[in-house]
């Protein structure tokens, strides 16, 4: 039932927007209508979850399903009045045949496409097989999902530690998409595939951007597929981080902004300009809003985009076509209503909320400019300090260091790895050629795109951590597409090198977190048995061996509706012994997890009662452990009197932790 509901609602929402956008085919290409449908699909999901979670505190499966069904049915009915479903289907079929025709004609492209499909299939298999295991997912991305699901509301929760506070203040757009992938299925089995759909959207955006740059379609497909073979992007596609999603959303936004650039203006393509550009601008605004509300660095991306748009408008003022001058007033109006307003509506909520609650829209960050404090926060620097090797290098050499990938293996969080060999060998020199050509020949469209991506990369405070700046590979891919087009008579050499490097990437993008023996073990297990404590992934294993015991107990015993209270938190940000919150929920996130700690035993009991705690997780030797021991000694010494109920029953115990069943009264 849950699976059927999940599949149906996703198909309904996506295709309703697809049919709707078919009516905009005079202003959007087929590829852009697919990407646009994805943007609208995401926007609808996040908007409905925010409506139910913030306004009505009713973010549960049934209301969410009903609300989205009503909205999408309305859109479908309205769209089908103007566009026939048969024509939409025919267009999809014709485009698929056309593209496959292009691919089949070129053997090397066919190989590249085949290994792309193989990679995507492998990712889906791994995402389905393994539970979510990445550090930040266990620390806060999935706990955000758990806390929203248990409360049925998006609200502040108690913050006994820095990480709990982080859970409250983190912009949650992508986490709401993770929630969408859990709430109907009542299982986290595919939650870690959330970013894969963004990766596909990013690949499609690169193709579309290349076509807009007048790169032949065949080469545009090459760029898009080669962009995919970026190791950190491939690894991020199967974990619950938000970095890949953020970068892909930037590319999607820039793709739509390209509809209203200087070259369109000069070509007189926008004779009906203001009307035709509104749909792409709106889609760019929605993408920008989704990005803004995905990560605390979102404002940096938006400010850069607005800056480059402003420069572009200034350039347009100096360009006159067909005797008409550029109408700045019309542009200001369209950009404000179609781009800025949706961006702020979809992404700004999290910052407004932090501003109201903490007096700082980007809390926890302390924001100062020229030693003048603008917003007070907890830290003025990143939570995780840079490795010494990075501190010893200058701005340029640290980038070269990471791009050389002086690492023993790839990990999903990139660490000190780069963007793979395709970037270093092919894309880097291509960027130089393409940029030089664009500057000389005044290729404004490429310069606009390159300026946004390059400037965002340059101003990003941690651009040496490659997972934060995956979008720059998009510039590399587009530049390589230009190089391909420019040297088309010698394309075979480039194709062979590209295929070899993509193949090498496919063969070496293996992570020590997913080893073949573990794959074999998990294939033989039932779905419910494929747990984190069985997985013992490399990235956390050495730090959580003391935790596996109670994780296993929770996995096997905590049922729907049970409330598990925990009584301790991480001490600061000591990553040598992390306390991951995500494993305190069962795989369907159908139990509740609450923090319960007080100064006295009596207050603690009151608190346990008020949160309806059924089970309590305590540390051995803690004050709670002492209270429980005292209570149990009292019980056993007086139990001969009869009519005594055992308040705390030990359900699990090891050297470090205990889980007790709490019987109130």
């Amino acid at each position, binding site marked *: 039932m849950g699976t059927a509901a999940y599949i149906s609602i996703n198909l309904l929402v996506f295709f309703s927007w697809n049919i709707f956008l078919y009516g905009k085919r005079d202003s959007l290409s087929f590829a852009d209508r697919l990407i646009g449908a994805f943007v609208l699909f995401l926007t609808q999901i996040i908007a409905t979850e925010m409506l139910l979670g913030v306004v009505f505190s009713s973010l549960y499966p049934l209301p969410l399903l009903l609300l989205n069904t009503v909205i999408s049915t309305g859109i479908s009915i309205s769209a089908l009045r103007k566009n026939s479903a048969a024509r939409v289907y025919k267009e999809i079929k014709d485009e698929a045949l056309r593209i496959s025709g292009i691919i089949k004609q070129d053997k090397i492209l066919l190989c590249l496409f085949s290994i792309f499909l193989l990679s995507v299939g492998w990712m889906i298999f791994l995402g389905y097989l393994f539970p979510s295991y990445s550090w930040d997912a266990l620390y806060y991305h999935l706990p955000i999902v758990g806390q929203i699901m248990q409360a049925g509301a998006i609200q502040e929760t108690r913050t006994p530690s820095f990480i709990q506070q982080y859970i409250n203040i983190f912009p949650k757009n992508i986490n709401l998409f993770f929630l969408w992938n859990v709430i109907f299925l009542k299982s986290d089995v595919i939650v870690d595939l959330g970013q894969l759909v963004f990766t596909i959207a990013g690949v499609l955006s690169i193709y579309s951007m290349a076509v807009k740059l007048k790169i032949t379609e065949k080469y545009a497909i090459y760029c898009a597929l080669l962009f995919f073979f970026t190791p950190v992007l491939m690894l991020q596609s199967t974990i619950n981080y938000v970095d890949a999603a953020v970068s892909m959303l930037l590319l999607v936004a820039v793709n739509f902004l390209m509809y209203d650039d200087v070259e369109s203006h000069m070509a007189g393509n926008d004779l009906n300009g203001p009307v035709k550009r509104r749909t792409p601008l709106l889609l760019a605004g929605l993408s920008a809003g989704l990005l803004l509300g995905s990560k605390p660095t979102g404002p940096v991306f938006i400010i850069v985009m607005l800056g480059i748009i402003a420069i572009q408008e200034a350039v347009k003022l100096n360009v006159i076509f067909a005797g008409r001058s550029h109408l700045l007033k019309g542009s200001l109006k369209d950009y404000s209503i179609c781009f800025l307003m949706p961006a702020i509506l979809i992404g700004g909520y999290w910052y407004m909320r932090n501003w109201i609650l903490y007096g700082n829209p980007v809390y926890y960050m302390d924001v100062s400019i020229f030693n003048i404090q603008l917003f007070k926060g907890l830290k003025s620097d990143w939570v995780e300090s840079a490795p010494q090797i990075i501190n010893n290098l200058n701005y340029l050499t640290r980038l070269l260091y990471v791009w050389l990938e002086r690492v*023993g293996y790839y990990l999903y969080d990139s660490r000190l790895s780069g963007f793979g060999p395709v970037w270093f060998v092919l894309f880097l020199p291509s960027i130089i050629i393409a940029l030089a050509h664009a500057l000389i020949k005044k290729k404004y469209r490429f310069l606009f795109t390159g300026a946004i991506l390059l400037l965002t990369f340059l101003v990003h405070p941690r651009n040496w951590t490659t997972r934060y700046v995956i979008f720059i590979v998009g510039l590399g891919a587009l530049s390589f597409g230009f190089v391909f087009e420019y*040297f088309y008579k010698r394309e075979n050499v480039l194709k062979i090198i590209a295929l070899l490097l993509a193949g090498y990437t496919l063969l070496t993008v293996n992570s020590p977190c997913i080893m073949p023996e573990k794959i074999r073990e998990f294939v033989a297990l039932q779905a419910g048995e494929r747990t984190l404590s069985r997985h013992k992934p490399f990235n956390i294993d050495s730090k959580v061996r003391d935790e596996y015991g109670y994780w296993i107990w929770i996995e096997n015993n905590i049922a729907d509706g049970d409330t598990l209270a925990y009584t301790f938190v991480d001490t600061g940000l000591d990553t040598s012994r992390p306390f991951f919150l995500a494993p305190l929920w069962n795989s369907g996130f159908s139990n509740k997890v609450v923090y319960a700690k007080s100064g006295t035993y009596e207050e603690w009991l009151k608190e346990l009662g008020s949160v309806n705690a059924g089970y309590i997780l305590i540390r051995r030797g803690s004050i709670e452990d002492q209270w429980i021991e005292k209570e149990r000694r009292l019980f056993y010494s007086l139990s001969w009197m009869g009519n005594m109920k055992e308040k705390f029953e030990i359900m699990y115990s090891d050297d470090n932790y205990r889980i007790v069943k709490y019987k109130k009264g």
Partner: protein
Amino acid sequence: MMSENKKSILFVLYIVTALILAVIYFSVPERKEFLEFNIRWWKELWQVLGSSYIRLVI
């Protein structure tokens, strides 16, 4: 003709640059450890597939 000659020179320059970058990339000291890990990974996969196939046949 001149333009084609320029393009050819530029192309050769591009390929030579790519080859130099490839040599630099693949010759960092850590590449050996990186390749050893991946060879180990594929060997392990080969063994897993091999033993699974034998079990299937038996």
